[in-house]
């Protein structure tokens, strides 16, 4: 899932289908994945960041928050991106020490459909100093409670609706919601990787999408006087139904091989989890029946407060591409791959690993089966997409590289250009030298597979089933 050009076409489609006025916002940690770009990846990461600015310009974002990770390449580079962007980059608490003034816009006021919407943003610092984050001694990142109370009061006086784009944790955002009821919506970033369906805390809704651009959130609001969120039973019904669907999917998976209390004999924690799921299923089913009655009643009376409905759109690879944004992402891909190619000329010695050719000497039958498996073709899938030098993609498509920072990642010999034997069984250099004295791992643990077969990359992964496909045993 994911892809900027597909997200762009999805947003365009949704805007065309809806008659409601809309705003498009991003809560930050947009440009980089690490807290500090490494010299090895710097060129590629900066090229991607520029592409994202150009893409967001075309999409027409109304506001983007400055997250802590957005400063990974230093404040100067982010200021260059700000000059390139047609959307405002916001942070109310990242300031110049010498002047005490915010470096980015602290807030914007946007009018839509007769509504005045104020948007502000807070940047996180975690346990680091501002200088460690920005690479600039004349900066500070103030705590939210030194900035937001006064700013929010001003914004509430000028607008009908206040949105906070927050780079802080859910716990901090819940505190903000408790102390500042004028903020009615908090979109958060920086901590979770999954979608967060809007949670109501005091008078604020808190929500976020999953990471890496694989999902788009759509929040449909109907705003009424008093600005108090009405607990929407219809919304709760949808959320509970989704929970029940997830619960029943998990029970079905556990029951696939028979009665779980027999199948998982000897695994008491698994049996406890199964029983807890059955209890949860029953509770959710009862709750759904009551909610259905409440929803029917509410439909007769009509809403009295502001209401909302939320949808998460998966950015599937089957979505069409936005043609203008596609040109940008293709250009980024070529730039990133060429930057990697330029650095790939070195001869390298890979310690601990031997490559699959050495394994074939003694394990011919297994390697013959492996050659027919998907793992043997993983590097080719990158070459087909011109991503074979993209350090973000390489670690899950080759052997002996676990992050994009290894200096040899761009210069691997041919026998490492696939997910070979050692990717699952561990480095085989010592085993190849003394096969009877030094053994490698037999069946790899599921955790080894899950490093790359994450839900976002492979939501259909099944450990036992997919291990058989490799045919190594």
């Amino acid at each position, binding site marked *: 899932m994911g*892809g900027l050009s597909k997200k762009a076409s999805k947003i365009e489609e949704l805007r065309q289908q809806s008659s409601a006025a809309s705003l498009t*916002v991003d809560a930050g940690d947009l440009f980089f994945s690490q807290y500090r770009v490494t010299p090895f990846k710097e060129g590629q990461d900066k090229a991607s960041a520029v592409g994202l600015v150009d893409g967001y310009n075309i999409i027409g974002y109304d506001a983007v928050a400055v997250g802590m*990770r957005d400063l990974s390449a230093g404040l100067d580079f982010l200021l260059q991106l700000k000059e390139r962007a047609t959307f405002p980059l916001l942070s109310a608490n990242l300031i110049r020490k010498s002047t005490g003034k915010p470096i980015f816009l602290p807030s914007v006021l946007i009018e839509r459909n007769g509504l005045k919407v104020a948007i502000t943003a807070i940047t996180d610092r975690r346990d680091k100093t501002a200088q460690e984050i920005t690479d600039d001694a004349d900066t500070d990142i103030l705590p939210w409670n030194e900035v937001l109370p006064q700013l929010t009061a001003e914004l509430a006086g000028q607008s009908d609706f206040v949105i906070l784009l927050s780079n802080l944790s859910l716990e901090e955002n819940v505190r903000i919601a408790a102390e500042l009821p004028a903020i009615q919506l908090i979109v958060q970033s920086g901590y979770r990787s999954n979608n967060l369906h809007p949670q109501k805390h005091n008078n604020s809704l808190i929500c976020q999408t999953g990471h890496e651009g694989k999902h788009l959130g*759509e929040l449909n609001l109907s705003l009424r*006087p008093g600005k108090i969120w009405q607990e929407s039973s219809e919304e709760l019904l949808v959320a509970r139904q989704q929970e029940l669907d997830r619960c029943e999917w998990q029970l079905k998976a556990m029951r696939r091989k028979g009665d779980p209390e027999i199948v998982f004999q000897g695994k008491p924690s698994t049996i406890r989890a199964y029983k807890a799921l059955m209890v949860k299923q029953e509770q959710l089913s009862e709750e759904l029946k009551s909610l259905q009655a409440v929803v029917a009643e509410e439909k007769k009376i009509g809403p009295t407060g502001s209401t909302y409905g939320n949808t998460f759109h998966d950015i599937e690879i089957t979505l069409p591409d936005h043609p203008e944004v596609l040109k940008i992402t293709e250009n980024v891909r070529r730039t990133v791959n060429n930057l990697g190619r330029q650095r790939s000329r070195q001869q390298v010695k890979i310690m601990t690993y031997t490559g699959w050719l050495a394994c074939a000497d003694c394990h011919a039958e297994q390697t013959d089966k492996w050659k027919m498996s998907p793992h043997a073709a993983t590097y080719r899938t990158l070459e087909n997409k011109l991503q074979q030098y993209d350090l973000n993609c390489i670690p899950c498509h080759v052997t002996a590289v676990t992050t994009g920072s290894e200096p040899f990642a761009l210069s691997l010999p041919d026998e490492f250009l696939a997910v070979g034997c050692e990717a699952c069984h561990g480095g085989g250099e010592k085993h190849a030298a003394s096969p009877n004295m030094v053994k490698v791992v037999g069946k790899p643990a599921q955790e080894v597979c899950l490093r790359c077969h994450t839900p976002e990359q492979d939501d259909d992964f099944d450990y036992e089933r997919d291990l058989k496909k490799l045919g190594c045993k």
Partner: protein
Amino acid sequence: MTFQYRFTTLLILMAMSIIIPATGALAAGNGRDLTIYYSNDVHGKTEPCG
């Protein structure tokens, strides 16, 4: 009531029936609709791998 009083009252009522809907204030009963498209934590990804 005098004619002038009635006429003035009528004028005021007519004016209010125009002004109140036009203030842009949230009307009781009918909500003002707004859609927020939101994203976060893109982490530099312009497209998926492979």
